[in-house]
């Protein structure tokens, strides 16, 4: 059984092996469903020249934004960025490289990477700056561009629950990119709100099977809200 026990007890153990110049795929959409503690650990490790594959880049003092302060990120592969001033400064001064990728193409690139599919054709981005330098092919009278898959040296993921074997369940829209990210890391590290005993999760309710997961750590999350919007009273 111990061969399937994915639980680690420290952040040092969780991110062991991360070195300069690696590619890290991070789950999360905005500040929702981000692996807060794993990002903080990367900041603590001061690993440099990292490429991050993540839909967004956090804000100045939260999420991946905190890695910008120490210039730990060399390149971002994202669909929407610039919610923070330091990002803007580093991008405009050329210190930070950005590869803008349509959100669905980004999700599919990661999904394909995890599923052993090296590339796929999509209509998204045809005829736009995204298509520059990419192969175009026509199927049934419509034009598609060839997009290549993404894999990471590490994937960092946030889930709601994990059992000791790394079977994962996500919570509400904190799911977002996390299931895709989990499949596409050579080493997939998951931060969870709750670790449950094996057998507590029904086999049919598991979102990510443990085969994709290498390490699981339990955490408490701040869960910062980016845009609090409330129903009008009355």
């Amino acid at each position, binding site marked *: 059984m111990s061969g399937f026990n994915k639980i680690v007890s420290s952040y040092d153990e969780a991110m062991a092996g991360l070195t300069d110049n690696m590619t890290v795929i991070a789950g999360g959409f905005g500040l929702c469903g981000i692996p807060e503690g794993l990002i903080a650990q990367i900041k603590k490790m001061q690993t440099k020249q990292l490429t991050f594959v993540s839909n967004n880049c956090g804000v100045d003092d939260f999420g991946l934004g905190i890695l910008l302060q120490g210039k730990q990120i060399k390149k971002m592969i994202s*669909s*929407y960025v610039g919610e923070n001033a330091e990002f803007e400064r580093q991008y405009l001064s050329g210190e930070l490289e950005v590869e*803008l990728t349509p959100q669905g193409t980004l999700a599919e690139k990661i999904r394909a990477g995890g599923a052993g599919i090296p590339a796929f054709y999509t209509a998204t981005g*045809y005829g*736009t700056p995204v298509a520059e330098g990419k192969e175009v092919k026509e199927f049934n009278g419509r034009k598609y561009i060839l997009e290549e898959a993404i894999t990471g040296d590490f994937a960092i993921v946030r889930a709601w629950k994990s059992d000791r074997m790394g079977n994962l369940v996500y919570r509400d829209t904190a799911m977002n990119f996390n299931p*895709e990210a989990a499949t596409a890391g050579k080493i997939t590290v998951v931060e969870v709100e709750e670790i449950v005993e094996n057998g507590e999760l029904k086999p049919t309710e598991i979102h990510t099977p443990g085969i994709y997961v290498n390490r699981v750590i339990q955490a408490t999350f701040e869960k910062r809200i980016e*845009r609090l919007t*409330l129903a009008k009273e009355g």
Partner: protein
Amino acid sequence: MSLNREQIAMRVAQELKDGDYVNLGIGIPTLVASFVPKDIEVMLQSENGLLGMGPYPTKENVDADMINAGKETVTAITGASIFSSSQSFAMIRGGHVDFTVLGAFEVDQNGNIASYMIPRKLVKGMGGAMDLVAGAKNIIVTMTHANKHGHSKLLSKCTLPLTGVDCINKVVTDLAVIEIKDGAFHLLERAPGVSVEEIIEKTDGKLIVPDDVPEMKID
């Protein structure tokens, strides 16, 4: 009088059909949700992974794990489902979303749209817009007819980098409802009190004007 943001949203809402799965972009498109006709039901898709988006939560019901594509806190309606990003975009790219409404900087007479990038300014990214315009069956653009300098946003050819090609069917502006087909803009309706001449003057691309252009019906 030209329409305000709410009135543009009201006019767009008249295009919705009972049983439509709908994705609304940020800005005016978001307002469309407030004007869905009472006698029909639609399901709102939010591309971060929610089908069946409900209203904003009360203070007691706020949950950081429940947000929409604009990163706003939201709720889910009965019958909603929540899924991963690749599943969300499989719905969009696979043509399963019936109706998409989004904003734009420019639209041209061939149905091309530019909405995500102004060169030499900070480029924030396209988010899901390129997937939406490539995938949805019916796409409506909402925008003002002209920019704040008075220049038309309905052009013979877009000048800004494109979000998608040959994909926009209809544009609802503060002045008019315009259909795009056969390489031209076709004037369908005008805002109450707005003259056909003003629309012609503020449209740069090829505009086909029928003899009778009815006024929009805005309640």
